[in-house]
Structure formats: structure tokens, C-alpha cells
């Protein structure tokens, strides 16, 4: 099994992601080194905190270029929570900033009357009439995953949407474009289904 690189922006508990990957038997490298990230075939970008903070960290560490370079070299990339949001073109949290631009869309506060942040287990429904994203192999539609966020991505292209969630209003739970994937929830904290998803990511062929 190949090594998975987990990008450390210094903004989240990367240990949880690392623990989950180790539990599944993967070797893990936690790093913020540009070269390591740029040359890795499999990258996870976790994150907790504001979009502006995350975007600034990516830029300061040169990881915006590194991740884009990896994407151009056909690496598989999985963004988790803030990591997913940073895949977008831009975000408004903490002031308007630019994201990685790997997924066409912007990140704004959840449009809901319900309590924020959106914290807890909520179900992810796969869009109809589209093929189920390979990250969800073996996971039935409407399974629960753990969310904790107040912002979410809106995509210009509906074909990028791989999962939807309802919190007094529908929002995008997961996206995919080519080999770039993003999930708003935390698979490393979503017990059985989360571990299955991480395993599916690990098993994606890098050919």
C-alpha cells in the first residue's frame, strides 16, 4: 500500500486523520514540505478554522502551488472540512480570499435558520442520475457522517456534486472533479463509514 501524504497547515488535529489511516494499514507522512506534497500521488488536506486563515497558510507555506502541481500530475487529492473548502475558487469567511481553484465554486455561510455551527451526525444523499463517487463504494446513500462547520461550498457545476446534506436547507456535502475530492464532513471521525471512505481513497488506482 502506498504512502499517503497528509498536509499539515498547523490548523487542525492531523493526528485523527493519521490514526485512522494507520488503523487501515497505510503509511502516512505528515508534512508541510512543498516538494514532498508536489510529488506525492496521494494527498489528504485536512483543516479546521476559517477559510481566510487556511488560504493564508497555504500561500505562506507555498502549498497552494505544491497542491496545484500535484493535481496537474494526476495526484489523488482529498480535502476534508476546511480542506475541502480550500479546493474552491474563493471563500468569504474571515474576509474574501482565494482558494486553490481546483473546484469551481465559492464558500459562504450555511443558509439556514438552524443553530450554527452545524455539529453532529447528518446523512449524505447521493445525487440522482449520477454515478456514485468511488469514495462512497460500499456505503449506502443516506448514511450518517460527522459534520462540524458553519460554511459550505456552492458549486457552479452540478456534475462536481457527489453528496448532499439537509440542515434546514440543502447544502453540498461532497464534491469531486477528476482526481480531486472534497468532503465537508470528517471521515476520520465518522466511525465505520468514515473508515470505509478513507480505505476507498487509499485504494484509488494511481495509474
Amino acid at each position, binding site marked *: 500500500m502506498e504512502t499517503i501524504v497528509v498536509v499539515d497547515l498547523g490548523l487542525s*488535529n492531523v*493526528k485523527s486523520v493519521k*490514526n485512522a489511516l494507520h488503523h487501515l494499514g497505510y503509511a502516512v507522512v505528515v508534512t508541510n514540505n512543498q516538494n514532498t506534497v508536489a510529488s506525492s500521488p496521494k494527498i489528504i488536506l485536512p483543516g*479546521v478554522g476559517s477559510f481566510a486563515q487556511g488560504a493564508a497558510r497555504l500561500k505562506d507555506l507555498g502549498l497552494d502551488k505544491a497542491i496545484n502541481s500535484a493535481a496537474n500530475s494526476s495526484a489523488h487529492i482529498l480535502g476534508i472540512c*476546511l480542506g475541502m473548502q480550500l479546493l474552491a475558487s474563493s471563500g468569504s469567511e474571515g474576509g474574501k480570499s482565494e482558494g486553490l481553484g481546483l473546484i469551481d465554486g465559492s464558500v459562504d455561510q450555511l443558509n439556514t435558520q438552524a*443553530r450554527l*455551527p452545524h455539529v453532529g*451526525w447528518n446523512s449524505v444523499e447521493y445525487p440522482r442520475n449520477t454515478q456514485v463517487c468511488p469514495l462512497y463504494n460500499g456505503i449506502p446513500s443516506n448514511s*450518517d457522517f460527522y459534520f*462540524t462547520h458553519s460554511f459550505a461550498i456552492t458549486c457552479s457545476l452540478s456534475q462536481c456534486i457527489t453528496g448532499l446534506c439537509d440542515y434546514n436547507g440543502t447544502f453540498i456535502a461532497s464534491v469531486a472533479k477528476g482526481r480531486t475530492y472534497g468532503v465537508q464532513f470528517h471521515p476520520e471521525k465518522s466511525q465505520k463509514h468514515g473508515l470505509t471512505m478513507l480505505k476507498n481513497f487509499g485504494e484509488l488506482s494511481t495509474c
Partner: protein
Amino acid sequence: MLKTRVIPVLLYKDNQLVRSENFSSHSYIGDALHEVIRLSQWGVDELIYLDISSSYSDCFARSDSKHKLTSEPSDLVSILPAVSKHCFIPLTVGGNIRNVDDIQRRLMAGADKVSINSAAFKNPDFITRASALFGSQCIVVAVDAIVTDCGFEVVIDKGKTKTGTMLADWCNEIESRGAGEILIQSIDRDGTGIGYDVNMIERAMQSTSLPVIALGGAGKYSDFSEAVNQTDVSAVAAANIFHFKEMADRHIKREMLNSGILVRA
């Protein structure tokens, strides 16, 4: 739709798991690491781990001491790496957290969220700083309260010091300072098993738009559904029932489902 969460609370004191009653008596109930492994494989939704050991620094160190304290013998943080390795549901750690370094240590050791209480009350700026540094999602503010003639009064220092501040006002301030969630605990109901203080929970729910976790008093499986049905509280937490009743999570969730509450299967 979002499910209502069911959360066991483990109380850790001097290397052991204990139960508590009215915040005063504590008796040994089991091995700290083993219980986390057992519970995280159940259908519970999160775990809260509270360190109620007397702080090492309360006993020995002067703030101007040149002698640096290294490891604390009854330090929950030291077992966190082992605890978090087996825990694939969110883990909140609280107790004896006084500053951002304490938070950092716990997050680095494997906690997903931290719960801060007295230190936050004594210096509310701590909440603002912590949320800015680590993200609101990581910061739970715990509020312990008692029933008085005037309403619900906030108590700090592990139940020892009345503050004169009312629950609603403090919840308001917690929210304005950027915390992610509020954990509200009834000191009067702690360990009694007579049910949650739904009036107290209701008061908390009215005074904040943050998610609220209720704790204190659960004794029967139906106590959980009663609290949720009467207050719409975001999460119900309990300590003792999970340690003394087998498959408590299944019974609790079945009761909740039967009374129309959405829970994770």
C-alpha cells in the same frame, strides 16, 4: 436532517475512571483506556473525557517557581495518544484547562475538541483567543449551574464557587466570544439519576443559538427522550448510565426513536 447526539462522559481522576454525585463524592469504576475503547465501538455519537483530578500545579508549584514541572502523575493528557488511537468518533477533553498551551497540548495529543470552564469564566477573553487560534469547532464551553431563588446561577471551580452570574447572561457572552458549543451541567442533578433539569436546559437553549449539550441527572433510558422532547436540546450526555448498564446506547436510542427523535442508527 441532523441527528440528536448521545454522548457518554468519562470522569478521570488520578489515573482512574470514577463516578460522581453532586460534584463531591467520587468512586472508582474502571480502567480509563479500556472504557474508551469499549464505548467508541458502541453506537454512541461522541465521547467526552473530563479530568477532575486535583491539578498538580494547585498542590505544588508557585507561579514564580524556577522549577519546571514536567509530567503530572495523574495527567489525562499522557494517556490521550493511546485513547485517541482507538477512537473514530469525536473526542472532547476537558478539565484543568487554563490557557491556550493546555488546549494545544490536548489537541496535539489527540483530542478533537476541548471543553473549558472556570478559566473561561474568570477570563472570558480566553474563549475569544482559543476560538481564533484553534477554530470555534474545537471549543466547547462547559457551564455548571445550580437552581436558586432567582433562577439558574453559574458555579465554577468544580462546583465550589458561586459566581452570582445567571446562566442566560453567561451563555450569551460565550456565544458572542466565538465558542462552538455549550455544555450545560446541573450540579444538583449530578449522579442522582432523577432525570435532566429540563427547565435549566430550556433556559440555556433560549439564551443562545449555539448547539447545547445537556448533562446531569440521567438515570433511566426515558430521561434522554424526555429532555430532547421538552427542550429540543442538541445533544444529551451522561456519565454513570453508560458504565453501569450494558448496551445502554441501544436502549437509549431505541427509546428516542420510539418517541420520534432522529438519532444515528
